[in-house]
């Protein structure tokens, strides 16, 4: 039965046609976009043939926004308006940013639950800045691939917390990208390597980027990538190596006064250059003019590889400590690790490679470009998620990197979901009232491994409302914490004695609320090129097509369990949606999607149950 025959320009509905999807590595220093074309995953170049887009955004006084190389060129002469490495600020508070990164050339404005950067074009949220980068990558991909993207997989450091993940997803939404999944950078790298080698067994992914470090231990088995443990540091990367060099040069020159913004930027560029050159040669000479308190000064000297290695030794040692911890969490001995994969530009530093080799006792793998491997892995997953590979056996089973807990009496944290639990996961916790007639209850959710509230990261505060007024201790509220496959948290609550659903007010500690995002989208649309109606319509149409296709596949697969009368109503609902999709009424499409969703609900439930049985039947057939 041919269900779909819509021909919208740019929106092909042939289920067998290759759908456009990309993997995006939104990096601290550089960002990349990759896609699977003709069965091969490749990074997509820009018009000039470059693969790495510098993660730099410049907000000009003349209302122009530059991203990438053009923006980077401005970093030195207009540092205040050139946002570099914005990923470091995602989901972070001001005190956090200042204590971790020290002096930065930006003016931060602290808001209720976000930190904005003051630019020549007003205040910009780190999420908006990230969205500018994603928007450019989206454009780059669409012009190279020649069509609208059906979706994207975006990578995040495995160690990213909920606020940072949500921030990344919100940025994608702002950029008009449909997020198929957020996946962890080391897991993406494992996919890129795993599919290449077809290897089975334990692998370790050592991922040292510009601003973050991750270590993940995975077990590979017949297309299943099972993350056993993950660890790392969201504020440790190659940028820190650069800073160490800068600190040493300034200390050697006895400079203790504050540098101008421009000089700060120049110094950190120098730090990066010295580091990069030391990967090739043993000693680097430098000369630089800097300005401090109105005085200009020339610094010159030389920096040796040995100096460099001695100042980064502690940082590298810290990464190895995380490796040891991750192995222990995975219950794996070093000797069991089959391969160690190097990911991230900072693994180019020879000292890092040597130390990792010594630690694991084997030569690390570097055959895929460490800058590209994450985007490549993400594109393979995107190709699968968008439905280009219905018969694929690949499955990623990832874990939550940080424990999730609740504040209890005395500022202590009680763990609800321990770190390294496989996601998705749902855990319930029961609470009771402590006062007669109490109808509200405040719940504070935290993420982290420490016992004290002050040492963990505050994720959100919830207020449970509408608790039936009962004697103290009688009302039992069951709160369920869900972490989905993107690693994002959601919460539901139920009062057990009455079965009443308690409403929850979510207040993210850092991040945007949904209506703020909607406002930003509207604002960016009114300023610019796109028409919001057109964009919403296009998004609805894409959603509709994806859904109709998926349902068609499902009904073919599970043909046997579709009831006859059910088939009639589902077909009607599909026909309705098909009609709506051909029109220009976004609201009508939305309504028709909802209708099809409801109509196919019983079938979906039966199918899920059936699929478990089928999974095991398939298994026993294999055995025989």
């Amino acid at each position: 039965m041919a269900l779909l025959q819509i021909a919208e320009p740019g929106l092909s509905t042939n289920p067998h046609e290759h759908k456009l999807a990309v993997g995006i590595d939104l990096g601290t220093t550089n960002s990349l976009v990759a896609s699977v074309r003709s069965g091969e995953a490749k990074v997509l170049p820009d018009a000039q043939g470059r693969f790495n887009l510098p993660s730099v955004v410049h907000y000009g006084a003349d209302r122009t926004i530059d991203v990438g190389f053009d923006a980077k060129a401005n970093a030195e002469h207009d540092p205040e308006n050139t946002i570099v490495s914005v990923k470091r600020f995602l989901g972070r508070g001001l005190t956090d940013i200042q204590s971790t990164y020290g002096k930065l050339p930006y003016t931060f404005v602290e808001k209720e639950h976000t930190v904005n950067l003051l630019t020549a074009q007003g205040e910009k949220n780190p999420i908006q800045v990230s969205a500018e980068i994603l928007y450019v990558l989206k454009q780059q991909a669409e012009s190279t691939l020649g069509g609208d993207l059906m979706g994207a997989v975006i990578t995040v450091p495995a160690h990213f917390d909920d606020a940072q993940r949500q921030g990344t997803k919100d940025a994608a939404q702002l950029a008009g990208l449909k997020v198929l999944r957020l996946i962890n950078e080391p897991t993406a790298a494992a996919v890129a390597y795993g599919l290449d080698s077809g290897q089975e067994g334990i692998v370790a992914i050592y991922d040292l980027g510009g601003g973050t470090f991750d270590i993940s231990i995975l077990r590979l088995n017949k297309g299943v990538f099972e993350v056993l443990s993950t660890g790392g540091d969201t504020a440790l990367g190659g940028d820190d190596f650069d800073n160490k060099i800068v600190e040493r040069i300034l200390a050697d020159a006895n400079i203790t006064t504050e540098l101008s913004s421009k000089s700060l930027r120049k110094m950190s560029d120098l730090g990066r250059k010295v580091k990069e050159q030391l990967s090739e040669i043993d000693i680097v000479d430098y000369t630089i003019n800097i300005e401090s308190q109105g005085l200009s000064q020339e610094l010159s000297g030389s920096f040796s590889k040995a100096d460099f290695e001695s100042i980064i030794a502690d940082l590298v040692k810290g990464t190895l400590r995380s490796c040891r911890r991750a192995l222990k969490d995975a219950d794996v001995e070093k000797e069991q690790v089959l391969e160690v994969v190097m990911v991230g530009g900072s693994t180019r530093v020879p000292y890092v490679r040597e130390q990792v080799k010594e630690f694991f006792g084997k030569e690390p793998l570097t055959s895929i470009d460490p800058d590209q491997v994450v985007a490549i892995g993400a594109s393979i997953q995107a190709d699968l998620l968008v439905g280009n590979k219905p018969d694929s056996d690949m499955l990623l089973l990832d874990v939550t990197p940080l424990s999730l807990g609740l504040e209890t009496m005395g500022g202590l944290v009680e763990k609800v979901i321990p770190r390294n639990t496989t996601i998705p996961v749902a855990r319930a916790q029961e609470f009771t009232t402590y006062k007669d007639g109490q109808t509200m209850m405040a719940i504070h959710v935290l993420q982290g491994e420490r016992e004290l509230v002050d040492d963990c990261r505050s994720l959100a505060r919830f207020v449970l409302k509408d608790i039936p007024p009962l004697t103290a201790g009688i009302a039992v509220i069951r709160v369920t914490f869900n972490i989905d496959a993107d690693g994002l948290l959601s919460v539901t609550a139920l009062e057990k004695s009455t079965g009443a659903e308690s409403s929850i007010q979510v207040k993210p500690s850092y991040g945007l609320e949904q209506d703020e995002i909607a406002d930003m989208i509207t604002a960016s649309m009114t300023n610019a090129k796109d028409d919001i109606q057109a964009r919403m319509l296009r998004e609805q149409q894409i959603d509709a097509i994806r859904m109709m296709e998926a349902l068609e596949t499902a009904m073919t697969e599970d043909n046997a369990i579709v009831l006859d009368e059910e088939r009639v109503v589902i077909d009607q609902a599909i026909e309705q949606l098909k009609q709506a999709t051909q029109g220009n009424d976004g609201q009508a499409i939305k309504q028709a999607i909802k209708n099809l969703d409801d109509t196919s609900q019983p079938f979906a439930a039966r199918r899920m149950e059936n699929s478990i049985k089928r999974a095991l039947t398939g298994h026993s057939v294999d055995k025989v």
Partner: protein
Amino acid sequence: MRFFDLFELPVSFQLDTELLVERYRQIQKKVHPDHHANASANERLLSVQTASEVNDAYETLKKPLTRAEYMVAEHGFDVRHEQHTIRDGMFLMQQMELREELEDIGNSSDVEAAFDSFYSDVKKLIDEYTNSFVTEFEQSSFESAADAVRKLRFIYKLKEEAQLLEDKLLDF
């Protein structure tokens, strides 16, 4: 969802963990949200819920302690959330001795050897109470089986504390 039934395994403490992990993967390959990414909102929700339950079932059966806890909970003795005091004098004495041994480890001349010896003592106890749990459970003496699980909880807790101390002393 009954956990053993889900994986089509017999209800028994002795379980083929290789078979468990294989069946877990087979099921996840079908129900995981990644295989329902384009589906309707309802189906996606169902998929997340089912995958979460399958993960929970797998995690629970995978580890000996949680498996034992689950087995007695299925017979009405949920020891995971109860405030229960153990009155077995001999057991409490053993625990006290082990705690003392743990507290002294920091002062020992060979910390690693001291930990090895401690873990071997702990393992003996785990084996002892696991055996007693299995025997009682097989005889359908669920109350006594639950009692053994309560003791196992104590011992595993102690082992966890020892591991934290080991991390601290051996510079993790």
